[in-house]
């Protein structure tokens, strides 16, 4: 019975996703969804990948990375070189983009993650700035004026399946024994070490996976906007992603999705007042750190089970089944 229920929820989720996919595909091809909202929809997708992968590092493993803009830039530029400068196919660009980001993640993470998390914050923040400066000075990728003429290869199916696969990857990683090791590092690194968990290995592992997915987001970004400028990848981008993760909840994957959707749409509305937008986000971040440090959803996930329970609360019949 329980088995059936498990499959049932998987089937329901698949059906909902498939319906959503088809509906949006129809909406785009029939012109029902305007170009402006298509752009925002793609941006939501990219931001979900960014937020979920940052959550893997900050929320699930308890590190503090501020380098997502840098990893995204590495992924975006290296993939753009593959397609625009060398004229090679897109799948290869995806692989190269993710690998390049993962490799830089390894280079930054290996020395800093042996120590306490605070050093990672500074090292990754500096890394992000350096990536920008270096990109501005490499003429092969356009320098400060940017890299142009990247083929527009990203469409709705690619965005959709990238998001779904990324989320699935992170979810399965967290539910695996590796993921539990990461959670134990977050909860108490000293105790985890006592139990024989190689804490540096798991910190670096989560960090590298997070970096690779940020690279994937960069690949999608590059091949949707078809133009890359180093100044796009400033600290503000990392900060936006951090706000998404905090709003959604540290350690909640579905929370990251919710956070990414809310913040992307809010940013679209606040586009006219960029400085004030940052002030609002900063205040949001401070307030959430003070009053709800685990984020909006905390570690809770939005699952069918929880929704059912929520329905039960409203109907006055609270189910006996516990979440998890």
């Amino acid at each position, binding site marked *: 019975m329980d088995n059936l229920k498990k499959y049932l929820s998987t089937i329901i989720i698949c059906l909902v996703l498939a319906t959503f996919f088809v509906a949006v595909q129809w909406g785009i091809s029939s012109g029902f969804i305007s170009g402006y909202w298509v752009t925002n929809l793609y941006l939501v997708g990219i931001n979900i990948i960014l937020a979920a992968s940052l959550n893997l590092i900050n929320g699930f493993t308890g590190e503090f990375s501020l380098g997502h803009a840098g990893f995204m830039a590495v992924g975006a530029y290296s993939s753009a070189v593959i397609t625009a400068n060398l004229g090679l196919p897109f799948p290869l660009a995806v692989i190269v983009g993710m690998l390049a980001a993962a490799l830089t993640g390894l280079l930054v993470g290996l020395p800093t993650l042996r120590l306490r998390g605070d050093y990672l914050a500074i090292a990754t923040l500096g890394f992000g700035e350096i990536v920008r400066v270096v990109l501005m000075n490499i003429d092969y990728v356009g320098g400060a004026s940017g890299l142009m003429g990247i083929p527009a290869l990203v469409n709705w199916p690619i965005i959709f399946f990238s998001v779904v696969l990324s989320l699935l990857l992170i979810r399965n990683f967290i539910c695996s024994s590796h993921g539990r090791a990461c959670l134990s590092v977050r909860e108490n690194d000293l105790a985890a070490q006592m139990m024989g968990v190689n804490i540096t290995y798991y910190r670096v592992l989560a960090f590298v996976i997070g970096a690779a997915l940020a690279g994937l987001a960069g690949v999608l970004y590059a091949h949707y906007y078809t133009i890359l400028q180093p100044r796009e990848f400033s600290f503000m981008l990392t900060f936006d992603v951090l706000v998404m993760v905090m709003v959604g909840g540290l350690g909640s994957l579905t929370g990251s999705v919710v956070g990414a959707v809310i913040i992307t749409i809010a940013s679209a509305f606040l586009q006219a007042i960029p400085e004030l937008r940052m002030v609002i986000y*900063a205040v949001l971040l401070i307030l959430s*750190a003070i009053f709800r440090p685990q984020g909006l959803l905390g570690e809770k996930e939005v699952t069918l089970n929880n929704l059912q329970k929520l329905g039960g609360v409203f109907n006055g019949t609270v189910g006996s089944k516990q979440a998890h």
Partner: protein
Amino acid sequence: MPDLLQQLLNGLSQGSIYALIAVGYTMIYGIIQLINFAHGDVIMVGAYVALGCALKGLGFIPSLAVAMLTCAILGVLIERVAYRRVRPVSRLAALTSAIGVSLFLEYIMMYFLGADLRTYPAGFFPERTYSLWGITINNKDLLVLGTTLVLVLILQYVIYRTRTGKAMRAVSFDGQASQLMGINVNSTVAITFFISSAMAAAAGLLYGIYFNSVQPLMGLMPGLKAFIAAVLGGIGSVPGAMLGGILLGMTEALVAGFGGSMYRDAVAFIILILVLLIRPTGLLGKGVQEKV
């Protein structure tokens, strides 16, 4: 040879600015184990306050005093509002709050004053240059070195010769034990923020004069580098922060002078990685074993 000396002199001036900032980082980290991301932006606020004073016609010393006092109060306010409640909850929440404060200061300044680069009025600090054995000495260099030296000596006196300093050292050694000995930890932390933010304001004014520019994001890079200087010297150690700042400044100047200025910003981060790999406790830091 004169070339080398010239670069070293430039490095010394810039390094002493880093040292002033790094001292603040190291004091705050020493006492509450928090990277105060907002520290770099306190520098920026200090530079702006001094700029305002200068535009009102105040001289260097009064402007410096006003900026230091304003930022000291700002520092205490930041600690009170954004850190005090968060600190005991979790380190990540405190770091998040610190980043929030940093961005808040940057963009509230940008909103009200614009992102334009500003400079101190021409008469505020008349430039002179002297030459000595083939190297050019600017009176900016002398100003930076002199101010830093005076402030550092005052700081040294406060930390090692006064009751307040003793309390600060005690809290950074062991917060709980010092509370049991009757030290008011909260007010000691507030005093630490007061002093370190005042130092940051002075650094901001010096930085603004030295590079002749004031803008809302000016604190970001020197803030990061000063933190690295503090790590290089051994985080939590005040003499270490000074040593780290000056070493970092000189290394940067040498790389900029003989290699390429493009790599100037990268130097600090390479140093950070090297320090973390080779000697995580820094040059003058003591290793602390984590206990259960």
